[in-house]
């Protein structure tokens, strides 16, 4: 009998990782091949990416600035995934966090440390507020959270466009697409990389610890794994669902706050840079693991950064997007392939 594939339901993490690395390399190889045929010097491009993103302080700073919001939006989506829910609205919550932060920064005066703390909590509250309606609709009327969170993204986007080009428009420099500069900024610690990065890196670790070492974490894990069993165990499942959804929104809101106060320093239409949607991809890569977010967001940041570098090398945005998609596709395929092994049936013993 010929060789054939056998699917095993469980995959060791070493196997899963190996499969992903192979998938990643294959995607790169395929991308390089296509670029080569199109007349680009793939090797040169590859070297450029590595040198420019990892080989210099500037490169690392840029990478860190992309990594920061992705850590948080990826975590926001993962937090809700622990309850079996999808937060497709991290983009909107990000916008709201950025919006509230800007409002405070532009219109309230105070000592910088105090203002930063205020902005931090206000950003979190803004994100949480933006998911409040989907949360209540889910908790009390079982309305599908995917649709409600997604739809609110467009509302948030319009709101930010409106204030950035209208009432809060920058009147000093005369740009038409953004607000004036927010005068309070997160302190830097590595070139332009600010302490927001440290917060973003600590967040998944804190969440993972809370899941494992607090009563609340146990209740969330049980409620997510089997709500009926959680109810049976005396856990107020609805209350846990509400806190988890609000927490998810708050985390995305904090991402928006850090983006304004740490990186961009003003509010503008495209400030989310799709970080909310990319957060969904990060969560998928992380497979529901809070610590996995750290790795998933890093890969995503590398890809984004590579995309920016490739654009400076003359590739169009659509080519970059296609390349990004290729990598995601191969990773997904690799995840599936990790389940299969090739076997040769043994000779009959009877």
């Amino acid at each position, binding site marked *: 009998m010929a060789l054939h594939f056998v699917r095993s339901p469980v995959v060791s993490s070493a196997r899963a990782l190996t499969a992903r690395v192979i998938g990643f390399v294959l995607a790169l190889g395929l991308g390089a091949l296509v670029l080569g045929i199109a007349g680009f010097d793939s090797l040169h491009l590859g070297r450029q990416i590595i040198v420019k993103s990892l080989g210099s302080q500037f490169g690392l700073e840029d990478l860190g600035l992309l990594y920061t919001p992705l850590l948080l939006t990826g975590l926001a989506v993962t937090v809700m995934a622990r309850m079996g829910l999808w937060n497709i609205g991290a983009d909107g919550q990000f916008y709201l966090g950025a919006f509230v932060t800007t409002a405070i920064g532009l219109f309230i005066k105070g000592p910088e440390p105090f203002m930063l703390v205020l902005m931090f909590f206000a950003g979190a509250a803004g994100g949480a507020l933006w998911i409040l309606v989907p949360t209540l609709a889910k908790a009390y009327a079982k309305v599908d959270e995917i649709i409600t969170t997604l739809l609110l993204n467009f509302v948030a986007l319009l709101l930010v466009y409106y204030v950035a080009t209208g009432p809060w428009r920058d009147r000093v420099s005369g740009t038409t697409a953004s607000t004036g500069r927010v005068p309070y900024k997160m302190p830097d610690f590595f070139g332009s990389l600010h302490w927001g990065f440290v917060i973003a890196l600590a967040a998944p670790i804190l969440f993972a610890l809370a899941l*494992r070492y607090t009563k609340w974490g*146990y209740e969330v894990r049980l409620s997510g794994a089997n709500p*009926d*069993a*959680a109810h049976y*165990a005396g856990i107020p499942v609805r209350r846990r669902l509400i806190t988890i959804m609000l927490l998810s929104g708050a985390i995305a809101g904090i991402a928006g706050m850090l983006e304004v106060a740490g990186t961009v320093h003003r509010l503008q239409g495209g400030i989310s840079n799709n970080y909310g949607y990319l957060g969904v991809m990060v969560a998928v890569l992380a497979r529901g693991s809070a610590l996995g977010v750290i790795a998933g967001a890093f890969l995503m940041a590398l890809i984004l950064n590579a995309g920016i570098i490739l654009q400076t090398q003359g590739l169009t945005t659509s080519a970059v997007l296609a390349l990004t998609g290729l990598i995601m596709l191969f990773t997904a395929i690799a995840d599936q392939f990790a389940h299969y092994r090739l076997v040769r049936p043994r000779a009959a*013993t009877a």
Partner: protein
Amino acid sequence: MPASPSPRPIVALRGIGKVFPGVIANADVDFDLLPGEIHALLGENGAGKSTLMNVLTGIYRPDSGAILMDGKEVAFASPVEAIAAGIGMVHQHFKLVRAFTVAENVHLGWKETPRLASKSVLEARTRALSERYGLAVRPEARIDELSAGEQQRVEILRVLARQARVLILDEPTAVLTPAEARVLFKALRAFKDAGNSVIFISHKLDEVMEIADRVTVLRGGRKVLTETTENCTTTKLAQWMVGREMVLGGLREAIVPRSEAGRIVLALDHVSASDDRGRKGLIEVDLPVRAGEILGIAGVAGNGQRELSEVLTGIRRPDSGRILVEGVPLDDPSPDVFLELGVGHIPEDRIKSGIAPSLPISDNAVMRAYGEAPIAHGIFFSPKAADALAKQIADDAAVTIPSLRTPIRNLSGGNQQRLVARREMRIARLAIVAAYPSRGLDVGAISTLLHYLIDLRNQGVAVVLISEELSELFDVTDRIAVMFKGRVMGLYETKDADLERVGLLMGGQTQQTEAA
């Protein structure tokens, strides 16, 4: 089966071995399935029965050994390939899509399903199949509306529709009413008479004696023997399963006689409640439960037992009526209130509400204790203390566990049940509501479980035992209530109760009702 030169087996397993991290599930198992036989597979909880069948149907790959079908070696990469070759399995835990209809489930993933078929076509085809195999189903009904027996018929129909020659049933009667079991047996005999074969896993030895032609016994993953049923008795079977003389019974003797009736600790007063589909599940039920007694609830499954057990433990809220604890009405009955009071609950549907299958054994074992010391300290949860308690519960339940970190779904069905039962008995200071607690347990484990319930009763705990096995109820209870269509039809002192009358009441026949 005549002992004359046996025909070539349809399926032959040769030297099958399967190891999971820390567990030898199967070791060197030989097994022959002849055409036209019903072959029972017996063994204690965790003996490796389900695993062996999962190896045969391609869910697991054997670590060693070979599978032969009609004398040729085969290796199925998945159950889909197995069913294509004519081997179909109905699992211990059903694998139907709950949101789909019966017709859709029967046609799911089947190459003969007509493309772009309309609902009515699928339903007509399902109806035809249902008539052909004598398995009554309602093609248009959604799975989650069906009783366990109906769901099982759908599973079997799915398999038979795909022209299976070998049907594997893993503990099929555990969730069936006696009447449903009779229907199943009739269908199995018809299937066998057509020259097909059945592998039948069960812990009910009487049933095995009734339906099987041959029996194979496994112990600790190894085959003990294969024997024709004619040469077996239930005693012998039990002995082969555990490997030593088994002392069962002694239940009546363990019950310490009462001088007077205990105080009423838990009571329902005119309680009505709806079932999951919003229909009347419990109707005007009055039920006093006394300390230091085992109150049996007899009745055919699906007559309000689930609602009764859920109302008695706070999971389901009554629509009207009162729940009294020690004579005091509860104004907000909820599961945490009952937990605090010390009311344990072995639920009817373990997978659905008793455990979280994907979580580690440890997390599942501490479901009732995670909120108190030593597992909780203020807001903190100590995984180490959780592991220690889980270890203790597993030891008490006589379940060997490779690692507390493995998901509980990796345990055998009976071992999951043992853990849940121990977990609930641990917290039962006031009362325990045990719904079909012996489902899925082997004979030894059932006896142990009933002894534990008697111990609790002797210590003054109120025990509510919901069961379909009248013999079990008559063996261990102090009083028996009979349920029919959501009502309590009668309540008797067990010593005065008459098996005949209880049987009639279970069927809804009332001549006279008396209360004790």
